[in-house]
C-alpha cells in the first residue's frame, strides 16, 4: 500500500513528474558521460597499447614512438638480441615513412604514410578485407587511402620513397599490389596509410633507411613482468629508449590528471543538480499533501510508513531518471566521441568515452544514493508534521 501511495503521488502530477524525471535523466546522462570520460581515456589508451598484446615499445633514444623522424640502426641485430631472450615471444620492427603514390593522369602524387612491417608478427592493423602482406610487393591499405587513390584489392600502385626536386624524379619507385584493406590502430583517423613489408620500405629508402626502424614492439611471455624485460632491454641496449605499457599508462595518467579532475568536478555538479531536483520536487509534493499526510498519521499510519512512502517516491524518480539517463548518456557519449575522434592526429583506435558496465552501475548507484539523500529532508518534514495542528490548519484553510 505504501508503494501504491508513492506511485499514486507521482502520477497525480504527471507533467511535473515527467519534467523532474527528465531533469534527473539529463543530470544522470552528464554524470555517466563524465564518469566515462574520466576513466575512458586511460582505459582506451591501455586497450590501444595492448591491442595486439605487445607490452613494450622501443624507440630511438630520448624519443617516444613516432615522436620524431629519428630511426634506430642495426635493426636486425637488435631483433636477434631481443628474440634471444627467452621471456620475449615476439618482436615486431616497424619503420614509418612518408611515401608518394604516383598515378598516371594525376598532376601531383598523393602522399601517404607507409608502415614497414614484418608480416609474420605485425601488430599495427586489423585486416578488414583481402589478405596480409606476404610478398615483397604486397601492401595493405586503409579506407582513407583507398578513397584518396581509388585503388581496390588487386590493383597495382606505383609508390615512391621520395622526390628529387632537382631532377624532378621519384626515388625508390616500386610497383606494389594492393592485397588487402585494414583498420590501422595507431595512425590518425583521417590519415591515408599503407602497410608494406619492412624490407621493401627499407630498400625503397636506399642507404638512408638500410636496416633501420622507427620502433620495435615487444611481446613478453605470459606471467613475465614486462617491467623486468624492459629493464633488461635498457641495460642491454643503451642507445634506445624502452617504455612499457605500465610506464606509458603512468605517464598518460599524470598528463590527464587535470582533465580527469575536471570531469569528476562536472560529474559531481550534475549529481548535486540531480539531488537538488529530486529533493525539491519531493519537498513540494510533501508540502502539497500535508493535510493528507496528517490524515494518514491520524488514522494510524506510522511515521515509518510515511517515511517509506517518501523514500520510495524519491527513489522511483531517481531510478527512472537514472535508467533513462544511462540511455541518453550512451547516445550523447557516442555522438561526442565521434566528434572528438576526428581531431587531427588522434589514432583511430583511441576513444574518449569508453563504456564499461562498472561506469553504468557507478552512475546508477551514485544517483540512487543521492535519491536516498534527497528524501531525507522531505521525509523528516512529513514524519514530523504535528498531526492535530495540521488538521486544525487544514480545517481553518
Amino acid at each position, binding site marked *: *500500500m505504501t508503494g*501504491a*501511495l508513492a506511485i*499514486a*503521488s507521482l*502520477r*497525480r502530477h504527471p507533467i511535473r513528474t515527467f519534467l523532474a524525471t527528465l531533469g534527473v535523466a539529463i543530470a544522470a546522462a552528464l554524470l555517466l558521460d563524465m564518469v566515462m570520460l574520466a576513466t575512458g581515456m586511460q582505459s582506451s589508451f591501455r586497450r590501444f597499447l595492448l591491442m595486439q598484446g605487445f607490452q613494450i615499445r622501443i624507440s630511438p633514444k630520448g624519443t617516444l614512438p613516432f615522436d620524431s623522424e629519428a630511426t634506430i640502426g642495426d635493426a636486425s641485430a637488435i631483433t636477434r638480441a631481443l628474440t634471444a631472450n627467452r621471456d620475449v615471444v615476439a618482436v615486431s620492427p616497424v619503420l614509418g615513412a612518408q611515401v608518394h603514390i604516383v598515378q598516371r593522369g594525376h598532376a601531383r602524387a598523393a602522399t601517404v604514410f607507409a608502415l614497414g612491417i614484418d608480416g609474420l608478427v605485425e601488430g599495427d592493423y586489423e585486416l578488414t578485407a583481402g589478405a596480409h602482406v606476404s610478398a615483397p610487393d604486397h601492401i595493405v591499405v586503409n579506407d582513407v587511402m583507398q578513397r584518396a587513390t581509388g585503388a581496390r584489392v588487386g590493383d597495382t600502385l606505383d609508390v615512391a620513397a621520395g622526390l628529387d626536386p632537382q631532377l624532378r624524379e621519384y626515388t625508390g619507385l616500386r610497383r606494389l599490389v594492393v592485397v588487402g584493406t585494414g583498420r590501422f590502430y595507431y595512425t590518425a583517423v583521417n590519415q591515408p596509410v599503407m602497410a608494406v613489408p619492412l624490407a621493401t620500405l627499407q630498400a625503397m629508402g636506399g642507404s638512408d633507411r638500410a636496416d633501420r626502424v622507427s620502433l620495435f614492439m615487444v611481446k613478453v611471455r605470459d606471467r613475465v613482468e614486462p617491467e623486468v624485460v624492459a629493464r633488461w632491454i635498457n641495460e642491454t641496449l643503451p642507445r634506445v629508449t624502452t617504455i612499457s605499457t605500465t610506464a606509458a599508462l603512468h605517464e598518460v595518467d599524470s598528463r590527464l590528471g587535470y582533465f580527469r579532475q575536471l570531469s569528476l568536478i562536472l560529474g559531481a555538479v550534475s549529481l548535486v543538480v540531480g539531488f537538488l531536483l529530486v529533493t525539491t520536487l519531493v519537498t513540494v509534493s510533501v508540502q502539497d499533501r500535508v*493535510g*493528507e499526510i496528517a*490524515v*494518514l*498519521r*491520524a*488514522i*494510524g*499510519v*506510522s*511515521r515509518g*510508513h510515511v517515511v517509506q512512502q517518501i523514500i520510495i517516491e524519491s527513489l522511483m524518480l531517481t531510478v527512472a531518471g537514472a535508467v533513462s539517463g544511462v540511455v541518453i548518456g550512451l547516445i550523447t557519449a557516442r555522438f561526442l566521441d565521434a566528434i572528438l575522434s576526428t581531431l587531427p592526429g588522434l589514432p583511430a583506435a583511441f576513444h574518449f568515452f569508453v563504456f564499461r558496465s562498472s561506469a553504468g552501475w557507478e552512475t546508477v548507484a551514485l544517483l540512487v544514493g543521492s535519491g536516498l539523500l534527497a528524501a531525507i529532508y522531505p521525509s523528516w518534514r512529513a514524519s514530523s508534521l504535528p*498531526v*492535530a495542528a495540521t*488538521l*486544525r490548519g*487544514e*480545517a481553518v484553510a
Partner: protein
Amino acid sequence: MKSELSGRETAGWAAGVDHGGPVLSVRDVHREYRMGGDVVRALRGVSLDVAQADYVAVVGPSGCGKSTLLNLLGAIDRPTAGIVRIRGRDVSTMRDREATQFRLRNVGLVFQRFYLMPTLSARENIELPMAEAGAGKTERTARARELLAYVGLAERERHRPSQLSGGEQQRVAVARALANRPALLLADEPTGELDAATGAEIVGLFSRLNADGATIVVVTHDEELARSARRVVHMRDGKVVA
C-alpha cells in the same frame, strides 16, 4: 482480524472487549496552546465518560474547544493536564509510536472534509488502515466490500473520491474509520460539508451504526445530528457546561 463477519459485527465495534468500565473516560483535561506570545487555554478541566454503545454529541459555539477535545479523545493530541482513558488505557501519556498503533486499532476517525486519498479507489481507501494493521490482501478486500455494502456503496468500490458525491465520500470515510473494528468512532463535524439532504443520510448512518453497537462521539453544529445522539454534551469556553 476476523475475515467473516455479518450482522452487528459487520461494522466492527463489537470487537471491543468489555472491561467493565466506560469505553472512554476523560478526567479534568486541560489543553493549552501557544499562539505567538499568547497562551490559548482551549480546554479548562473537561471530564466526560462514554459507555459502550453510547452515542454522544458534543455541541457548542465555534472556538469552544470541541475539536480540541476530539483530538485528545482520538490520541492525536496530548492534554496539557488530565487523563484520557480509552478502554481503560491512558492515552494521554502515550508516546507517538504507541499512540499511532493505538489509534490504528482502537479509534475510528471521521473528518468534516472526508480526507480520502484522492489517488486511491473507494475500496483501497477503506483497505488502507487494514493494510497498515498487517491484514492480508484477501481479507482486506473482503472486509472493505462488506463495509462498502454496509454504507450502501457496494457498486462504487472502484470509484475514486473525485468520482463520488460529498455524501458518498463521507460514507466511504465512515467505512474507512470502521475498517479495523475500533472501540470508539469519533467524528468531527461529519455533516459540515454536506447539504441538508445528504447530511441527513449521514445522520441516518450514524444512528444505524449506534443501533448496531458502535460507541460514537460526534462533534457538531448540526442540530439534527445532535438530536440523533443518545446524549448531548454542551461546551463553552473550554468547559463542559451541560
